[in-house]
Each structure stands twice: as C-alpha cells, then as structure tokens.
C-alpha cells in the first residue's frame, strides 16, 4: 500500500492557482526527487505534504487516512520537513539536538546525539559549541541531524544541499542515502542540482504548478 497519495491536489492563493491537479503516489521507503524551475510550486507541494500549508482542493491520504484526520502536530512528527538554509535555535548545538526531545517531554538522549555528531563529521565536544561558530555546511548537518534525532517515517528535504560546497554536498548526500537505505526512511527531496537529478531513483518534474514529467 502506498504511504502518501495525492489525488487532484490543488492550491490557490485568492484566485491565483499555485498548484493544479497534482496526482502522485509515494510508497514507503521510496526516494523521490522533485525538480523544476524556481517558482514552479515545488516548495508549496512539499509544504502541503508536510502539513505546513493546507491544500485548497483534492485529497491527500497518508497511511490510509486523509490528512485532515490527523492532529497536525502528531502528523509532523511522522512527516518531517527540513528547510533550505535552516535556522538553528538557542545558543548551542545541544539546544538544537535536544529540541525534538523537549517537545515530546522526553529526556535528551545524549549518547545518540554524540553518535550522530560523529557520524556527520563533528565531535562530542561540538555538542556545546555555539551555533554561531558553525560553518554553513556544519549548520546544515546539525539541522538535518535535528530532523532525525527521533526518526520520522518521511523526511522532506527542501534543497538542503543548495549553497553547499562539493565536499559538504557529498556528505549531506551520503547522510540522506543512509537514512533511506539503512534506516528505511521515505525521502522526498527537492533539488536543482544536476548531479542529484541524474542520480535520482525516481524523478518528478513540476512546471507552472503541474506535474509534467518523470515517473509519476
């Protein structure tokens, strides 16, 4: 059974259509890459899937139930969204990695945080490093780690490698691969990067708010 199904999903602001008749089925553990020109509606589409925006028409079914039947907070813990140029919270790396635990009233799993930091090329001592002292690539890694401290089922990535140098890009790419292949997360990733598009397992192209190509 598919994990996410969109039937004729549309989104308009006043009378201006941003997305029109989107039909899409995504299975669990799939890795879907979404490409398309700027302003084509890619971010709007994934924000609707992340429940940060509500579609204005059509149906969105997640795990057999319409999205409206879920409490948005519970839903977002299952379908996590990672932003392009993320904002880090508070003062230190710890503040960020502890946030997913705080909002669930759980105690912070410091061991897991350290394992995560080491996995993304940082060290245990970086846990108390000020977020302002991190480089762009390090910020993106910490932000991504924050999304997966407690695993979601779906990880939505909105151009998370944009603006990173080749080395950091490759690193983040390998992180995503690990989440998908080893941990079974469903990945929906927006990208402009030609290499990532060429390597896509399943590519979907969107133009002027409509799905126009790829494996629908």
């Amino acid at each position, binding site marked *: 059974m598919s994990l996410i199904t969109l039937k004729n999903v549309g989104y308009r602001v006043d009378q201006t259509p941003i997305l029109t008749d989107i039909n899409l089925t995504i299975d669990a553990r799939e890795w879907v890459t979404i490409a398309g020109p700027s302003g084509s509606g890619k971010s709007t589409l994934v924000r609707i899937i992340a*429940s940060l925006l*509500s579609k204005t028409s059509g149906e969105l079914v997640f795990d057999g139930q319409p999205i409206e039947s879920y409490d*948005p907070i*519970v839903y*977002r813990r299952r379908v996590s969204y990672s932003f392009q140029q993320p904002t880090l919270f508070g003062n230190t790396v710890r503040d960020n990695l502890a946030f*997913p635990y705080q909002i669930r009233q759980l105690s912070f799993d410091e061991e897991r945080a350290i394992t995560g930091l080491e996995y993304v090329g940082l060290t245990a001592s970086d846990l108390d490093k000020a977020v302002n002292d991190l480089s762009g690539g390090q910020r993106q890694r910490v932000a991504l780690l*924050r999304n997966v401290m407690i695993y979601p089922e779906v990880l939505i990535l909105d151009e998370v490698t944009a603006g990173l140098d080749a080395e950091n890009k490759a690193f983040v790419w390998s992180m995503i691969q690990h989440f998908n292949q080893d941990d079974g997360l469903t990945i929906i990733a927006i990208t402009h990067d030609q290499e990532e598009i060429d390597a896509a397992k399943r590519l979907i192209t969107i133009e002027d708010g409509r799905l126009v190509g790829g494996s629908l």
Partner: protein
Amino acid sequence: MNLAVNNQSLVLALGLVMIALAIGWHEKLGIDRDMIIGVVRAVIQLFVVGYLLKYVFRLNNVWLTAILILIIIFNAGYNAKQRSNGIPRALPISIGAILISTTVTLGVLMLAGAIKFIPSQMIPISGMIASNSMVAIGLCYRNLNAQFKQERQAVLEKLALGADLKDASKEILRDSIKTGMQPTIDSAKTVGIVSLPGMMSGLIFAGVDPVRAIKYQIMVTFMLMSATSIGSVLACYWAYRGFYNERKQLTI
C-alpha cells in the same frame, strides 16, 4: 490642605501653554491646532470628570462604583485593542486580561486592608491599575506582531519538527511578556531617584507627611507590578494562538 490652585491661578498658568504655542509657531512645527485641541479637550474632560466624581463620591453607591470601574476597564480594553494590529479576538482578550488583572489586584489590596470599597478610593486606584495594564497589553501586542514576523522562519521550523503551538511560540511569548512588564520594572527601579510619581507627589503636594506618602507609593508600585504581570501573561497566552489557523499552521 495647603493647595492654592484656584480659577485665577489656572488662567495665569495658561501662559505656560502660550509658551508651547509660541515655540510651535516659531519653529513651524505645524502642531498649534493639535495643541489647542489638546488643551481644550483636557480642560473640558477634567472638569466633567471632576464634577462627576464629586457626585459619585457623595452618592457612595456600591453599584454605581462597580459600573464606573467596569466602564474604566472597557475603555482600557478598547484602547489596548487599538494596538493589536489585527490580532484576532483582541477586544475580548484585552477586556478579559484587564478585568482579571484589575480584580485580582484590587481584591488583594482590599483583603490587605490597604483600600476600602468606597468610590473615592476604588475609582482612582482602578484607573491606575487598568491604565497600566492597558499600556502593558498594548506593548505585548506590538511585540507579538513584530516577533512573529521576525522569527517566522524559526517558528516554521519548530512546527515542521512537530512542536506544538506553545513550544513553537515559547521564546516569543517570553519576550512579549517581558516587554509588557519592562516599563513597570524600570520605573520601580528608579522610583524616588529619578521621578516622584503621581500618587506620592499629589499627597505631598496636598500636605501629607512624605513618610506617609511613600507608603502609598510603595503600595502603588506593588499593585502595578501585579497588574502589568497578570495583564501581560493573560493577553500574550490568549493572543498568540491567533497567529495560527485551526490546522496549527502559521498564518503570518
């Protein structure tokens, strides 16, 4: 009483307004009309209030006193709402927050025996409490609006991580409550050093022993702390949900 303000001295004091008008005219500030309207309004409003209060104090009726307090609270709530800049349900929130902050503060003062339920005490004190609560709530609204705009991205990211509305807004709430209370805290820190506030000055002016007058001022400081903190907390906690829709999405 050693007060010596009579109608004649008031007319002479009008000369002070002339100084302000002359400055405005000479510097071409273009505010002479506003100034004249302001002065005329102040004189008329204060005379009306003076005679009204005299009548109410003489009548000494519990219900009339309560109604006047409610009118003060409604006016304060309406004014605070004007600072809300589109925050949903700002009028009931403002009135509710001012009503509760005023009632609690007055209640404690009465239980402590500091004031009695008589119009000459209840009405001026209610006015002081409600107006301070009103200013605090107005500041809270302005800060909520500014912070939700400024911190929009951070709030979105917290929501995307599955934070509930309170967790996503926590820093903004904290900052806004602090902003609402700040003027009261600042003036508490400088009271007596920088300014001799209205209550105390009035009593000293009217011939009351300064040591007695400061006790009233201490009471006022305490009561304004309570009024602005209760007002700010309630208004912020009731108002922040207005920045989200029923699907718990940020609408700003």
